[in-house]
């Protein structure tokens, strides 16, 4: 009777634990943690020419990140990622709200339509925007044929193209967590608020929005994280003026062959992502603790 409440380990052998636990943790330690550790080490070493290192500890690589050129690229990545996140909230929230209010059949169909892009190849989906945005692309052809513009607009290889690509790529990441929070939201609370005299706007801002804020935060993280470290989108849709940290890292590793600097860039990018993630976990743990 009491076994269900006892810690499971009381009935299970330690030998079994090792068989379950060790293979994956070893794999992740050797092929994930160790490589990250080496990159951290490399970021603290001097450049040794042709992808090599000079075994002398230095903070020079990190100091180099603080020069205007690199700092500017970091700011741009941060700015584009934040812009993408904001647009995704503005587009995704009403969309998730709309889907939740439909009948069960429509709901699962519309949800499937949101999920399908998530399962299709990211490269292919990004490439689709080249056909739309390029000089003789669909958008320019349409604009010219209805005489809205005389000459094709330069759309591709601009910050606009990169932003569109990022929003397009990561919008499902915003809609899905928003949908699952809204799905659990008790809509009788809306009626209650309105019976008590609140109008629609007030009901939304004082009841619906606060109670679904967890989904918004989760969605923002899921969009911000891949956006700030994006590589494919700025590489394919961007130009020289839209270089993001991801492109810079690739450049240092494969073209400039300055691995220590590339390593420092990778570590800085990781820090940029881990800070909001850790803050999120800290806050949600506190909230969970407060409720129990």
């Amino acid at each position, binding site marked *: 009777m009491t*076994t269900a409440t006892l810690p499971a380990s009381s009935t299970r052998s330690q030998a079994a634990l090792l068989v379950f636990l060790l293979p994956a943790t070893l794999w992740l330690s050797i092929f994930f943690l160790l490589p*990250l550790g080496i990159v951290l080490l490399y970021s603290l070493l001097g450049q040794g020419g042709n992808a090599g290192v000079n075994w002398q500890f230095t903070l020079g690589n990190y100091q180099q990140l603080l020069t205007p050129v690199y700092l500017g690229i970091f700011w741009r990545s941060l700015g584009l990622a934040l812009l993408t996140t904001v647009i995704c909230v503005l587009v995704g929230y009403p969309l998730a709200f709309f889907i939740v209010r439909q009948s069960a059949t429509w709901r699962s169909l519309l949800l499937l339509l949101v999920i399908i892009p998530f399962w299709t190849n990211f490269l292919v989906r990004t490439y689709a925007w080249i056909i739309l945005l390029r000089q003789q692309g669909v958008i320019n052809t349409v604009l010219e044929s209805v005489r809205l513009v005389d000459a094709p607009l330069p759309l591709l290889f601009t910050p606009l193209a990169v932003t569109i690509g990022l929003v397009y790529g990561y919008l499902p990441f915003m809609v899905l967590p928003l949908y699952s929070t809204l799905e659990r939201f008790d809509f009788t609370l809306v009626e209650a608020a309105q019976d008590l005299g609140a109008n629609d706007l007030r009901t939304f801002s004082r009841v619906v929005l606060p109670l679904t804020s967890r989904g918004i935060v989760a969605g923002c993280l899921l969009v911000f994280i891949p956006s700030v470290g994006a590589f494919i989108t700025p590489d394919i849709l961007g130009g020289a003026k839209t270089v993001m940290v991801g492109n810079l890292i690739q450049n240092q590793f494969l073209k400039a062959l300055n691995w220590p600097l590339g390593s420092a860039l990778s570590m800085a990018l990781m820090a940029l992502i881990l800070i909001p993630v850790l803050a999120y976990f800290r806050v949600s743990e506190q909230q969970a603790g407060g409720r129990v």
Partner: protein
Amino acid sequence: MTAAPQLWSLRRDRWIRRIGQNWLVAHAALAFGFLYLPILVLVVYSFNQSRFNAVWKGFTLDWYISLLQGGGSLGLLQREGGGLSGGGIMPALQNSLVVAVVATLLATVLGTLLGIAMERFRFPGRPAVEALIYLPIIIPEITMGVSLLVFFTLVFRLVENLTGWRLNLGLPTVIIGHVAFSISFVAVVVRARLVDLDPVLEEAAMDLGANEWKTLWRVTLPLLWPAIFSGALLAFTLSLDDFVVTFFTSGVGATTLPLFVYGMIKFSVTPAINAISTLMLAASLVLVLSSLAVDRDAVRFG
């Protein structure tokens, strides 16, 4: 308060609500248009005769046929930083499938075991393992890619110095990388299912004399199959679609389908890319729908 202003405010509210509802419908239509217009355009233009313009010149299957007839001539794939990796679409497709199948098998076994360990055992260092599971999901792909490049380069140099063997990046290194980022996804999916499974079933089996392995085979795994399948499908899709980690861990001759497509996009944009993209979209659609058939909630993970 008189009745008239109240009636007026009631009317006003109803009016606002109607606008709000219409606006929501219009917004949803636009949002779905935004999600699907590019895909639709891609599919339509894969059948367009015109080579460079967006103008419709007539229906053709030429781009699909050109894929079948030695796709290698479509683009000579100069990888940045790497050498030439030629070969057509068929070798790339074959590489992708080999990598995806092997990586999925390994990641599914390791991830399932890890998921069971996390959900059914209490042990010291559990929070550290927890972090180890989530880190590969959170970390930027590019960081993971370059760290594997640095790691393999260093290890290969060490091996060469010690034994004289020359190892190179290739399909095995790609597989290792794919397993590394897929384990976590499988483990998370399997754990989510285990939380809902009453441990009493497994404990009853052991109380009745089944040992750890018999319990695993006869009780835990049969109950977990849908979750394991979902996890495996996720790993398979992630592997098949991966570009960034593959880009840094594949050497010459280990071109996968996404690398092949990337080469085409970067160096020779022809409508053949539309054709190959359409085929990849169709394949993804088959994968999503088949996973739905197995487990209705499977595809929700993300």
